[in-house]
């Protein structure tokens, strides 16, 4: 019979078992500190919803400009182009705009991810863009209660 290279000897087996269990316990315990609790096996952790409305701050205007369907016409250095949130963000939760959506992996987790998505999007705006930043106004409902509106923003640097 061919002996598999993964056939560990007795001492290595014990080391493997100990290391595996310790690492897994550390991963599970530390998941509590991650906003979306990834790698924590926290199944169905919340029944919260988010309703994301996107706006942009435009140079020379005081009022925020809404982003219908997540897209807008950007003017930079004479060039006009249409930029779209949905072309960059494909996540099933973060790409749903103006619709109440189940906040998979928890409200805190989705707000955390949304902030990073805003930063990412703004960081990729073309040089000289008239868009100074994005603002997400998020209507949140934690487990059907405690309705709140959270404002997240990302500014171009």
């Amino acid at each position, binding site marked *: 019979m061919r002996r598999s290279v993964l056939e560990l000897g007795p001492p290595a087996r014990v080391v493997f078992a100990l290391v595996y269990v310790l690492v*897994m316990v550390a991963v599970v315990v530390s998941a509590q500190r991650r906003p979306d609790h990834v790698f924590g096996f926290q199944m169905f952790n919340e*029944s919260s919803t988010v309703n994301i409305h996107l706006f942009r701050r435009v140079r020379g205007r005081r009022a925020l400009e809404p982003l219908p369907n997540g897209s807008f016409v950007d003017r930079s250095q004479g060039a006009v182009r249409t930029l779209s949130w949905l072309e960059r963000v494909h996540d099933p939760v973060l790409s749903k705009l103006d619709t109440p959506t189940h906040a998979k992996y928890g409200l805190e987790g989705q707000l955390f991810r949304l902030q990073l998505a805003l930063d990412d999007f703004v960081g990729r705006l073309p040089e000289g863009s008239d868009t100074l930043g994005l603002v997400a106004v998020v209507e949140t409902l934690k487990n059907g209660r405690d309705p709140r509106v959270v404002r997240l923003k990302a500014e171009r640097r």
Partner: protein
Amino acid sequence: MKWLTEERDGYLLGLMRLLLGVLLCVQVWARFDELEYWGYFGANFHLPFVPEAWVPSFATYRVLLGLELAGALLGVLGWFGREGLLVGSSIGIFLMLCDRLQYHNNRFSLLLFCFLCAFCPSDRSFLLYRGRSHALPEALRLGPTLPRRVMQVQVSLLYLSSGGSKLLDPDWRGGQTMLLRFQQGLEEAARAGTPLPDWVVHFLGTPALASLGSKAAISLELSLAFALWVPTTRVIALWAGAIFHLLIQASARVELFSWLMGVAYIAFVTPELHERTLRVDVRTTLGRAARTFVRVFDWFARFRIEELPGSEAEQGSVAVVGRGGETARGSAVPAALARALPVAFLAWPACALLALRQARDRSRTTDVGSSAGPG
């Protein structure tokens, strides 16, 4: 300390390797589908745990998915199956670290079980490339059982983490989270064009039911983490767990999770084979039917099949001798079979209760008969 050195039959671990390989194939296939639908994650917004420079290019990503699929297929075939599962699961975990948006509890769990199975002696049976002689002889199937114990620990850890996090959450404990889940399920059913009857809608909208359901789910998850380890509670824990996962499968989108837990439960099945005996009178239709049924559905090789001795033929045409030597006859036979055959396992408590009731009725009749006899 027996755990550290003991060696036991690896036959069932081969079955686990094969089934985990199938599940991993399905999962990788789904990722190819996602690639078609969503596009390459690295070209869009993604959140890597690893440095951005480690995130593979589109071409490399496709190669990695191909290698993961190949590893899973080797796991199914059994030819370098353990190595295949190790490569497949390692690639899967690495890709998960390349984008936390692609994290799903069920996918992570599958990858972990594949990883652990690679270190189990799961290359001694269900070697499909060997054809009908897929299993090695018993003496060669013996292998260290410690990695299987680690797989059992992983199952417990999963239940502890899931149940524990719910227990610590007042909305989960109180039933609010589950009440909303029920409502979402009803809305989805209505959207899918299958509205439920009013009384069902009313029933599922009751806060008391949601509260009770939450407490039951938390208690079950926490108790499964321990009850699966205790020989006296194991069989009932496996049954309750199977029902629990079937309910989840029916009510939520959990991809392969229910199937995965069904496979993971094999780690708790006694590794030794043919410790029970099915005795049949092949002259009777019932005897022949029982023999065929067990031959077809005894996937865990629990039974040895023997001819019923002529001296026992008048006590029924089928008998099951258990591990401890106890013999089940008559109405106790379905329970004894259902307990050991996966295909009938869900019916085991019903069969056992029926057998118990009939045994009690019989003993009552005997008592009445003896007390009514001539004094």
